[in-house]
C-alpha cells in the first residue's frame, strides 16, 4: 500500500491529508459562492472579490512598498551618516504612512464622495472630515518633528562598529538579553494600555447609562 500512497503523493504533489483539507475548504467556499451566485448582480460581486485581490497586488502594494523602500542608505557611508539617514527617513515616512492610512480608511468621508447620502442618513454635513484629516495629519507630522528634534539634540545613537552589520551572513542567535526583556515589556505594556482603554470606555458607558433606574 505504501507504494500506492507514494504514487498519489507523486502525482498530486502532497500527502492525502492535504487533498482532504483542500477539498473540505473549497466545498465551504463553493457553498458561499453558490449563495452569492443566487443574489442580484452576482457577477459584479465576484468581479469585485477578484478585483480586490488584483487591486491590492498590482496597485496598492507597489505604493506602500515604495514608502518602505524609499529609504536607501548611501553605499559605503560612515556609521554616523547611516544612523542619521535612518532617523531622518523614519521621521518622515511614519507620519506619511499614518496620514495615508487614515485617508484610505476614511476616503468616502474625507473626499466627500457621497455628501447627499451622508446628509440624508445622518442629518449632518460631511464637510468636517477633510479639515479633521488635515489636522490629524498635521499633528502626526508635528509629533514626528518634535521627536526628531529631540533625537538630534541628544545626538543620534551610532551603532556599535564592532558588531557585524545586520545584512551580513546569518550567525548564531544572540542570547536572550536585555533587549528582549525590554521589548517584551513594551509589548505587554502597550497591550495592557489598550485593554485598559477599552475596559475603561465600557465601564464609563455602562455606569453612565446601563444602570440608570
Amino acid at each position, binding site marked *: 500500500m505504501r507504494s500506492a500512497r507514494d504514487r498519489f503523493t507523486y502525482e*498530486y504533489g502532497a500527502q492525502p491529508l492535504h487533498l482532504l483539507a483542500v477539498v473540505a475548504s*473549497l466545498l465551504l467556499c463553493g457553498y*458561499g459562492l453558490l449563495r452569492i451566485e443566487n443574489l442580484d448582480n452576482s457577477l459584479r460581486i465576484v468581479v469585485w472579490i477578484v478585483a*480586490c485581490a488584483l487591486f491590492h*497586488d498590482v496597485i496598492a502594494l507597489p505604493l506602500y512598498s515604495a514608502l518602505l523602500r524609499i529609504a536607501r542608505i548611501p553605499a559605503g557611508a560612515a556609521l554616523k551618516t547611516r544612523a542619521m539617514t535612518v532617523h531622518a527617513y523614519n521621521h518622515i515616512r511614519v507620519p506619511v504612512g*499614518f496620514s495615508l492610512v487614515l485617508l484610505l480608511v476614511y476616503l468616502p468621508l474625507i473626499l466627500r464622495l457621497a455628501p447627499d447620502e451622508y446628509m440624508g442618513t445622518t442629518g449632518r454635513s460631511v464637510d468636517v472630515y477633510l479639515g479633521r484629516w488635515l489636522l490629524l495629519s498635521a499633528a502626526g507630522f508635528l509629533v514626528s518633528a518634535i521627536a526628531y528634534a529631540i533625537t538630534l539634540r541628544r545626538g543620534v545613537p551610532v551603532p556599535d562598529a564592532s558588531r557585524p552589520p545586520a545584512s551580513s551572513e546569518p550567525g548564531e*542567535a*544572540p542570547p536572550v538579553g536585555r533587549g528582549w526583556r525590554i521589548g517584551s515589556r513594551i509589548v505587554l505594556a502597550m497591550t495592557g494600555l489598550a485593554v485598559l482603554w477599552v475596559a475603561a470606555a465600557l465601564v*464609563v458607558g455602562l455606569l453612565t447609562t446601563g444602570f440608570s433606574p
Partner: protein
Amino acid sequence: MSRLEKLGELVSEEEDARRPPAPDPPGIGPFRREFWRSPLRGQWLTSFFGSMMLPFFAIAALTGFLSHAAYNPGLGANDLSGGFDVDLYFFDWPTQPVWLYSLTQSLHVIAGFAVIPILLAKLWSVIPRLFERPPVRSLAHSLERLSVLLLVGTSIFLLVTGVINVEYWLAPLGFSFLPAHYYAAMVFLGALALHLVLKLPVAAAAFRREGAFRPLGEGIDRMRATDPEVDDLASPDPHEPTISRRGLIAIVGGGSLALAVMTSGSNLLGSVREIALLSPRGQTGGPAGPGDFQVNKTAEQAGVARAMGGPGWRLKLRGGSEDVDLDRDGLLAMQQHTERLPIACVEGWTTWQTWTGVRLADLAALAGAADGANLLVESLQEAGAFRQATLAANQIGDERSLLALKVNGEDLTLDHGFPARVIVPALPGVHNTKWVSRMTFSEAA
C-alpha cells in the same frame, strides 16, 4: 515530534526525489528572488502579523453571525440575506443585557477597522510568494494558490465593503451590501480554515527557530537577517535595514490601535465621543435640544412628511381579538413608562437616550393578541427594506419595550420618528421602527 510538526509533515508539499526540481527559468523583475531586498521579510514576520490578525478575524466572524441572529431572521421579512437555507439559530435574540447588541456590533466594526493596517503589512510581508516560480508546481500547489486568491480577495472585499457601507458610499457597489458581505464571509472562512491548517505548522516552526518574541528585542543594529536557505521569504540579497522588525510592528500596531480607538469612540457619550474624529458617527453638537442625537435616516430621506403624522394619524392595531385604532392623544392617555435604552446600529455606533411611551405588552393586551404572538411593525415610510420589522414574543413581553412618544421629556422630533416609534432593548437599531403606522400581531405562537 510535536503535534504541529506532525501536521506540518502531513500537509506540506512533497519534494519528490523522482521529480527533480524544475530548472529556474531566467526570471525578470519581481520574478527574480533577488528583486525582493527587504531585510525584514521572513517567515517570522509574516507569522507574527498573521497571529496578530487572527483574534480580530475571530471576533469579527463571531459577532457577524451574532448580528445576523439579532435580526431574528426566522421572523416575517426580517431575513435580508436572500434566504440562508441552513438555520444556525436555535434561540430568540435576548433583550438582556440591554447593551448586548451595542457590544457585539461595535466589536465587529472595531475589529474590522483595526485589522486593516495589520492585513496590509501581512500582505506586504508575503508578496514575493505572488511571483514565485514556477507559478504552479503541482496539483496540490495550484489548489493552494486558488484558495489563497479567494482568501486575499474576500478578506479585502469584506473590509472594503464594510468600510464603505458605514461611510454611506454605496454607489460603486452596484449590489446589495448585506448578503454579499455575509456570503463573502463564508467563502473567507472556508479559505481561512485551510490557510490555518497549512500555515500553522510553518508559523510554529518559524517561532521555534527564531523565538516567538525574540526578534522584538532586536533593534535595528542587532537585527539578524534570516537565512534564505531555510526561509523562503527571506531575501537572498537584503538591503541594510532602515527600520527594525519591531519598529515596523510597533508602527502597524499603533495604526491599528488608533483606528480601534477612533471607531470605538462613536459608542461613547457626550463630548468624549469627539475622539472618534474621523468616524462617520463621531460628530456631536448641532441643533441643541432633546432631539440632538444621532439620526439614522432623516425623515426627508425616508420620504416621511410631518403631515403624515398629523391629527389624522391613527395607530392601527391588528391581528388581535379586535381591531383597535388609536390617535396620539389616546396613546398619551394610556399608562406612560420611561426607560433609558440604547439605539445600537449595525454600523457600530450607539446612542443612549431616555424614552417615554406605552409598553408594547400593554398594546398587545389592548388588542387582545394571542399569547406568544409575534408582532409586525410597519412604518409610514413607503419604501425601503426597513419600513417594517417583525418582533419576537420575548421582545414584546419585555416590560422595557416601548412604543415611544417622547424622548428626553419632549415629543419625538420628526427625524426621530414622530408621532411614535418602537424602542426595544438589545434590538438592532433599524428594527426600532420609526413613524409607526400599523402593528399586526400574528395569530398564535
